[in-house]
Structure formats: structure tokens, C-alpha cells
């Protein structure tokens, strides 16, 4: 029982501190060795995750007759078959697997990313409908103004004085307000990361003991 409780804890603390010393000292051989180990373990974990995804959908296909799971399983099998056919290819992804990327992954991801414009538009409308108020109004007004000013800046139809005014507006918003906001968010996220990581390194948080 003691081993069950304290073995993972001692491993996390000792290897975490060793990596921290290796990175901060800097002792390159130690840190690179441990990072290589982590890389290899993550690779194995990813493969196990993919196999788990495969088995879950295979079960769903045979128990629930889920057509979509069947499509997922078939597409995975197709890529594995292409990888086997590529065989001794020296590149990370052989010709067959690269074709799957060019023909399927790239167009699908590009289409999904371009669909984001519509999702954002709908989200904007929903924001006004569900939470009408000064903050929602400010948010949408700023977004609309920035879009309009960017579009007008390229049009060259505006008189010079208006263009100068537009440039100043964009400068104030982008180079002062947005820089401050982003800086605040980044510093906040970094402080949160440091605190959470230190809690893990001293054993106060144990996300691995489940």
C-alpha cells in the first residue's frame, strides 16, 4: 500500500527536480537524456491512445452497428495499410501516407478552419441575443470597427485626413490596448503555470494517482 502511494510520488518529485536542475543549471546531458525519455514515453502513450480509439470504435461498430464508427475504423485501417505498403520508405511518412495527408487531412482541416468565420459570426449574434449589455456592445463594436478599418485602409478611397485618423485609431488599439491586454493574459497564464507546476513538483497535486 505504501509502495502504491509513494512510488509514483517519489518518481514525479525526483525526476521533476532533476529535470529542473538540468534545465536551469544548465546541465545539458541530464536534461536532454530525461527529455528524450519523456519523448519516447509520450510516443508510446500516443500509439496506445490511437489503439484505444481504434478498439473503442471497433466495439461500437459490432455492438451498436454505429456506421460512423465503421467509417472511422476503415479510414484508420486504410492509413495503416498505406504505411505498410510504403514499407522501407526513409521519410517519416512514405508516399502513400503523404497522399492521405494531401488528399484528405489538408482539405478537411482547411475547410473546417474556413468554416470558423461562420461559427464566429453566429457566436457574435448569439452574444447580443443572450447577454445584451454594455460589455457585449463594446466587444462587437470594437470587432466591427477593427474589421471595417482594416478593410478601408486597403481601399485607398478615403481622403488622406481620414486615413491618418484611421491609422492613429489602429495604432492606439493594436499597439497599446491589445499589447497591454495580451501581456496581462500571458503573464497571468505564466504565473498560473509556475504555481501549478511547483505544486506538482512538491507533491501537493498528484494528477497521476488515479
Amino acid at each position: 500500500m505504501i509502495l502504491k502511494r509513494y512510488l509514483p510520488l517519489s518518481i514525479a518529485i525526483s525526476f521533476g527536480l532533476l529535470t529542473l536542475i538540468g534545465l536551469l543549471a544548465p546541465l545539458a546531458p541530464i536534461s536532454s537524456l530525461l527529455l528524450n525519455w519523456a519523448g519516447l514515453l509520450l510516443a508510446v502513450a500516443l500509439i496506445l491512445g490511437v489503439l484505444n480509439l481504434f478498439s473503442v470504435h471497433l466495439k461500437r461498430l459490432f455492438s451498436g452497428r454505429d456506421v460512423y464508427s465503421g467509417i472511422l475504423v476503415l479510414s484508420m485501417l486504410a492509413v495503416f495499410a498505406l504505411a505498410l505498403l510504403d514499407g522501407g520508405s526513409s521519410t517519416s511518412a512514405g508516399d502513400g501516407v503523404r497522399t492521405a495527408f494531401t488528399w484528405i487531412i489538408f482539405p478537411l482541416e482547411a475547410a473546417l478552419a474556413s468554416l470558423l468565420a461562420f461559427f464566429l459570426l453566429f457566436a457574435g449574434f448569439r452574444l447580443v441575443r443572450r447577454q445584451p449589455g454594455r460589455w457585449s456592445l463594446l466587444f462587437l463594436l470594437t470587432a466591427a470597427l477593427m474589421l471595417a478599418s482594416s478593410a478601408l485602409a486597403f481601399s485607398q478611397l478615403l481622403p488622406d485626413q481620414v486615413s491618418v485618423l484611421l491609422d492613429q485609431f489602429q495604432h492606439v488599439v493594436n499597439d497599446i490596448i491589445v499589447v497591454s491586454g495580451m501581456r496581462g493574459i500571458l503573464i497571468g497564464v505564466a504565473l498560473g503555470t509556475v504555481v501549478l507546476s511547483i505544486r506538482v513538483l512538491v507533491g501537493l497535486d498528484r494528477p497521476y494517482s488515479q
Partner: protein
Amino acid sequence: MNSELIGLLVGFILTLFIYSYLIKDNPLYRIAIHILVGVSAAFAAVVVMKEVIQPVFDMMRHDPTDADLLISMIPMLLALLLLLKRLPAVAWIGNSTVALLTGIGAAVAVTGAITGTLWPQLSRSAGGTPVEGMVIAVLTVCALFTFQFTGKLDKQGDWVRPVWQRSVVLIGRLVLTITFAVLFSTVFSTSLTLLADRIGYFVDQFSGLVS
């Protein structure tokens, strides 16, 4: 029919499947999403297998007495322990591997956050003039204070912030709202550019084929 045309047709049909979501959630969209998940997961597994796992096995085959091989056997052994997580009785042994990953990840996160974000953000000034730099510093502090939720209970039992903090938080909230709005507009215009690019790509390719 050459392979280029097949690839173009496959890409076009899958793109149409995705855009069909604009009408409503439908089976064509779901088919496309399941294909994307399946192919992407298998693609990632194949690349990781060839780039990370296979070199270790190649090293084993090439020179089984190599000292480096002995060191790389330790993570392989730990990786095998991960498999034990499938067996409830001995699943805790697999936790050792997860603990190792968590410990190393936490150490990397601390170092990355300090050297990659905190130090550069705190040490480098922003803005063209000293006045702009001061304004940015003050607004940054206001934005940070927006995330502080420490307060007191008033006589009615409601949670309230200290008086001095309220105006600071108001400015911070203003800054954050404008920042998120600008990010929103940037993502929106990028997405629109991508949409125009995709339509232009297919129009060009098909008109090239016809001509």
C-alpha cells in the same frame, strides 16, 4: 483519370461535406469528421512509429551491445508499464510512468514559463515612446488585477471587491474586452481569407482542367 484529378475530386467532395454543416448538422458532415479523426490519428501514429520508436529498434538490431541502448531500454521498460494500466489489479504500477511524465512536464513548464514568458514580458519595454511604455505597464497591471477575485462580504452578505480595486478592475475589463474583440476580428478575417482561398483554389483547378 490521373492521380492529381482523383486527389482534387476527393478534396472537393470532402470540402463540400464539411460546408454542408452550414445548412444544419447532417450525416455528410459527420462522415467527413469521422474520416478526419480516423486518418489524422492513424497518420500521427505512423509518423511517431517511424520517427521515434523505429530508431530504437534499429539501434537494437544494429548493435545490441551499445551502452546507449541500455539507457534507452529504461524508457522502453517504463512504456511497457503503461500497458498495465489496462489491468485494474496492477494499474497503479502504470502510474509510475505517468508520474515520471508529469514530473518532467512540470519542470519543463516552470522553465518555459519563466524564461519564455515571464522574463521577456517583464524585462522588455513595449511601445514607441516612454509615455506609451508607461501606459502599457499600467494597463497590463489593470488587466492582471481583473483576475484577482479576493474580496469581503458586506453587511448584506454579498461579495464585494475593495473600493480601490473596483476602478482598476473596470479599466482592466475594458482592456481585456477590447483585446478579445481585436482577436475575434483577426481570427474572423483570417478565416474569411482562408474561405476565399479554398474557393479560389477549386475554381482555378477545375477551370484549368476544363481549359
